[in-house]
């Protein structure tokens, strides 16, 4: 190999390495930035108090509760529908045109911009169905958005159950539903659970859809019915970062909110990793 070739080889491979290391550096910077700026703000009262004095003081408790409500509401709707869709696709439907169309719809649903979901939710759930901008309208909007993720995860879980389980069950005279109920679902459950938690984590971090369908600028009380508006962590961060009248004064609160939001999302993802490795350890086939 001549020298020039060797030099070019080294330069090009170094460029590839730099690209990868730059990605690591950006991630490390972002983590460090959010944690270091936010950690000084976190205190008991920051977590458990309501905002005070036009949101220049106090905490973010209503936003934490609101995000929890809207995420659970989302899961309550999208999990049953998503898992049922996956069961239909994987256990009932014949491979064919209809099945392909459903899968195509799911993949494209995953690509619809989140603000378009928000607009759709505003038009259909808030205006047409008269739910108003509320917890219910936001949950319905987010559940449409999370549906494709949950279907995909649940289908993967169903596919990982060996075909022989089903065949053995059919051979013993079980019907299709009995087979699904007793031989497939128990083993697919951990995978479905982790997929749903991932959906929950992404729903909790979304801003654009709830911005139009029910998130409130400021509410002193916690929402008491599904038709109430609610505060939410990501929307609260957006407000504190860009919409508040004294931006520099509330900047520390924004740092704290960003850290809590990131910690929440990361914790949910860590939970997924734990559940997954547990399920893998228990797997006996």
């Amino acid at each position, binding site marked *: 190999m001549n020298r020039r070739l060797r030099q070019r080889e080294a330069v090009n491979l170094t460029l590839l390495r730099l690209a990868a290391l730059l990605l690591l550096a950006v991630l490390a910077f972002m983590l460090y930035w959010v944690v270091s700026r936010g950690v000084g703000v976190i205190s008991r009262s920051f977590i458990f108090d309501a905002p005070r004095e036009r949101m220049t003081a106090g905490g973010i408790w209503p936003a934490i509760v609101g995000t929890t409500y809207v995420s659970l509401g989302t899961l309550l709707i999208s999990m049953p529908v998503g898992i049922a869709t996956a*069961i239909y696709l994987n256990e009932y439907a014949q491979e064919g045109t209809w099945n392909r169309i459903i899968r195509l719809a799911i993949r494209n649903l995953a690509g619809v911009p989140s603000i378009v979901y928000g*607009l*759709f939710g505003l038009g259909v759930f808030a205006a047409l169905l008269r739910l108003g901008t509320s917890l219910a309208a936001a949950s319905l909007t987010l559940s449409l958005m999370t549906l494709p993720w949950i279907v995909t995860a649940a289908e993967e879980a169903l596919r990982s159950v060996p075909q022989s389980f089903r065949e053995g069950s059919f051979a013993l005279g079980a019907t299709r*539903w009995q087979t699904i109920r007793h031989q497939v679902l128990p083993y697919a459950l951990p995978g479905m659970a982790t997929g749903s938690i991932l959906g929950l984590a992404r729903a909790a971090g979304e801003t654009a859809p709830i911005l139009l369908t029910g998130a409130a600028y400021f509410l002193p009380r916690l929402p008491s019915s599904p038709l109430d508006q609610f505060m939410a962590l990501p929307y609260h961060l957006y407000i504190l970062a860009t919409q508040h009248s004294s931006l520099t004064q509330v900047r520390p609160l924004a740092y704290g909110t960003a850290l809590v939001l990131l910690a929440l999302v990361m914790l949910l993802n860590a939970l997924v990793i734990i559940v997954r490795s547990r399920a893998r350890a228990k797997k006996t086939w």
Partner: protein
Amino acid sequence: MARLRLRTGSRTQRRELVEKAMQACFMLNGTVAILALAGILIFLLKESLPALVELGPGATILGTRWNPTSMNPGYGMLPLIVSTIMVTVGALIIAVPWGIATAAYISEVATVRLKEMLKPAVEMLAIFPSVIFGFIGLVVVAPAVARVFGMTNGQVALTGSITLAIMALPTIVSVAEDAITGISRDYREAAYALGATRWQAVRMVVLPAARSGITAAVMLAFGRAVGETMAVLMTTGDATGMPLTEVLGFITGPDFLASVRTLTANIAQEGLNVPWGSLHWQALFLCGLILFILTFAVNLTADLVMHRPAGGRRRVS
């Protein structure tokens, strides 16, 4: 005896009934995805077509003045469309080479240990909520851009592009890496047997072979970036003018140092305060429709490229 038969008879009947009911239930749920997608399209059309008919495409999609709340309202969306495309293309110019290089590094060059660090890092970048990207873009990237270009306000299209580029990276890296890893080992071995260096094998054999998967990665990232709201809303300033400037004195080109407002940011800014059913409302739904059609077309094409019948993917030209 007769009683016994009756009972088993009713039990099989019940079992059949349950069986049928469950099948119907699952089938019904299977259609939800199709109904949702069709429902979104139909609703967007139904809400936006009146405005398109009343004002005509010249005053909406091709109009250049967006100012729906003034005395003489303007519903021109061209500046919003141009801004959207501009910010997105700018992001891809940064993210595509960076992402493909990273993917190639992970699958072709990296040691196992580094690989085990890079893959979770990419996943972790993907779970950052978009509002946090927007916040970092606003507080870190915008002042940096302002300093570099000597401006007082750093909330410009370029800032949005940089922020979006980092958001789009995980999509490009993970999809491209899958495509590159999927290339058969024989290709590399054949290249090495012919005396190719590692870089030459990557550049001339592996990357061309993975071309369709990499194309899909770029398109998916484009779709993701076009539809992103928060990161752009918080970093690009808020101006509805046409972001064009004279390049080299005589050609009109995009102005990346201008504040812009994208289609997504426009809906987020105005969707809350608009009277339901008004002309302004319809115009916002038209913005939504444009976004829907744009992302749908891009995602569908990416889908077709990715799910091409086997064989087409392995061919090197």
